[in-house]
């Protein structure tokens, strides 16, 4: 288990942050990660993040929900325990549709939440190390991985932060799982 040495700067505004990310790209500095209290429009393409595949998983979960609901109801009401409701046929498809719809939504939503948690290594009882509490409140953070960086490189990065308008610059050692 090795630790990660992080040098991070805090910004007060997302516009300043976006300009700083542009500046880092122009200076060919590798950004380890960016933390913001809310989704910042335009940040993902600047960081070169690929589009999430979560919605494809959501479609598959939804389809599983549709089939589960429809096939199980069909089996229950025609084979397992046929009951006549209001003089309707055993296999009354219109009556199945609301439940089919609901299970589609349920499977898709629960499946996507669970997938999201697993992919991000989150879940009940897991605490992730936090760089700075204020990045969940009002600060925007750019973080560099400075493990093994020379004094000159560190100075360069600190200079980058002061040039791009960071309000605060800190270092922190994060435990890596």
């Amino acid at each position, binding site marked *: 288990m090795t630790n990660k040495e992080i040098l991070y700067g805090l910004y007060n505004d997302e516009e300043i942050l976006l300009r700083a990310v542009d500046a880092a790209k122009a200076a060919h500095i590798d950004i380890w990660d960016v933390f913001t209290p809310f989704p910042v*429009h*335009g940040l*993902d*393409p600047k960081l070169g993040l690929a589009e999430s595949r979560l*919605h494809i998983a959501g*479609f598959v979960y939804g389809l599983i929900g549709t089939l589960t609901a429809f096939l199980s109801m069909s089996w229950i009401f025609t084979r397992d325990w046929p009951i006549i409701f*209001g*003089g309707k046929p055993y296999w009354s498809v*219109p*009556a199945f*549709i*609301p439940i089919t719809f609901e299970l589609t939504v349920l499977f898709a939503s629960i499946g996507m939440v669970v997938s999201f948690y697993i992919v991000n290594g989150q879940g009940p009882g897991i605490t992730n190390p936090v760089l700075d509490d204020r990045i969940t409140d009002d600060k925007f953070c750019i973080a560099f991985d400075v493990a093994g960086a020379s004094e000159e490189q560190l100075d360069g990065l600190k200079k980058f932060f002061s040039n791009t308008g960071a309000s605060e610059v800190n270092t922190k050692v994060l435990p890596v799982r």
Partner: protein
Amino acid sequence: MDNFKFESRHKSVLLGGIVLGVVCLLLTYFTDDALHTRFWTNYLHNASFLTGVSLMSMFTLSAFLVAQAGWYTYFKRVWEAMSQFMIVGLVLMIPVVLGVYFGWHHLYHWADASEVAKDEILQHKSSFINPMWYTIASVGVVFLWWFLANRFRALSIKQDNNPSINNGEHRKQITIAAAFLPIAGFTSALVIWQWIMSIDAHWYSTLFAWYAAVSWFVTALCITVLLLIFLKGRGYYPKINTSHLHDLGKYVFAFSVFWTYLWFDQFMLIWYANVGEETVYFQTRRDEFPLLFFGNLIINFLLPFFILMRNDTKRKVGSMAFVCIVLIFGHWLDYFLMIKPGAMHTAHAAMGHGHHGAEHAADHGHGAAEAIGHAAEHGSAMLAGFHYPGLLDLGTFIGFLSLFLFVTLTHLARVPLVAKNDPYAEESVHHHIEPPYSEIF
């Protein structure tokens, strides 16, 4: 380019469309049965459909303004122009209203006093389903809608010359919009009941008004998308980007699903609660109009649902234009199916066959035209203009749609395309919801 220029060649194309529509209407009139059922149903179908589309553009503007939405402000003049068609719709409906009084048509079973006298169900409904309320709905209510839409647009135009931050026009617009929403919400139901639901005079459904109104709404959005694509292609609205298209696409997708929800629930509630006497509406449509009944669901639900489900199809001109063209036609078919079966039945009864039509053969001496109506209702023939739209019906639709676009573009050309001094004008230009942020679409 600040102003849209309504070029003469576009005018000619649309005028050509209008002429085609008039020719088709006339041809329908002279090849029709004795009561001109096909002519009157086509006329009512198209006039009510496009008046509703116009209403829904004003409804959208009001809803967005009250909700403090900012993304649409850049192109709100398109909706303002579309909302001005309502007064034309009012004029178009006047022959139908007069026809109710003078018996020009047999669209409505309840319009015939002698029929009401021997029909208990119609007597129970006659305090609302009567010529006076029909006139109030078609003339009074539509005029009120148009009046509010007209005031709304006038304030928007006036705002162009008022650079004050604290501008009063915006506040007045919010007042009109906040008043318009409940007014339109309740009165649109009234108008739909009178215009369309009362064709099947014995039948009623509380969901029907929503169902019909959502058809209007989806069509209004689709016409907007196509108009924006057209305007963008002509070099207007340079700052409309894929995010605007994406959001309109989301509305088309969402309200197609909402339409399906109402389409299904209207049937579901009647079926599940064993309301036997109301199932006749669906039985007629399922058994005698199966192609349209199930085709309706495929065109208006499955198609937009699977095409527009993905992100990127909502952001591309090709897929959006395709879905929108299909949906405009699809919801027109939906209205076709709402109007034709009931009107056909009413006309058939009025021609003297009553409900024992099967006993009366076509050689009863009522003439060939009536025999056609007779055969059609008893399912022995698929009849163009009733069981499926024929060329004349499509031509009529093209005519009315051309008129709608002609009125819209005329109003659009009169004022600057982009509203100035609107508090949301700047926000609207910077509408970005998702990468890639391309300015073009």
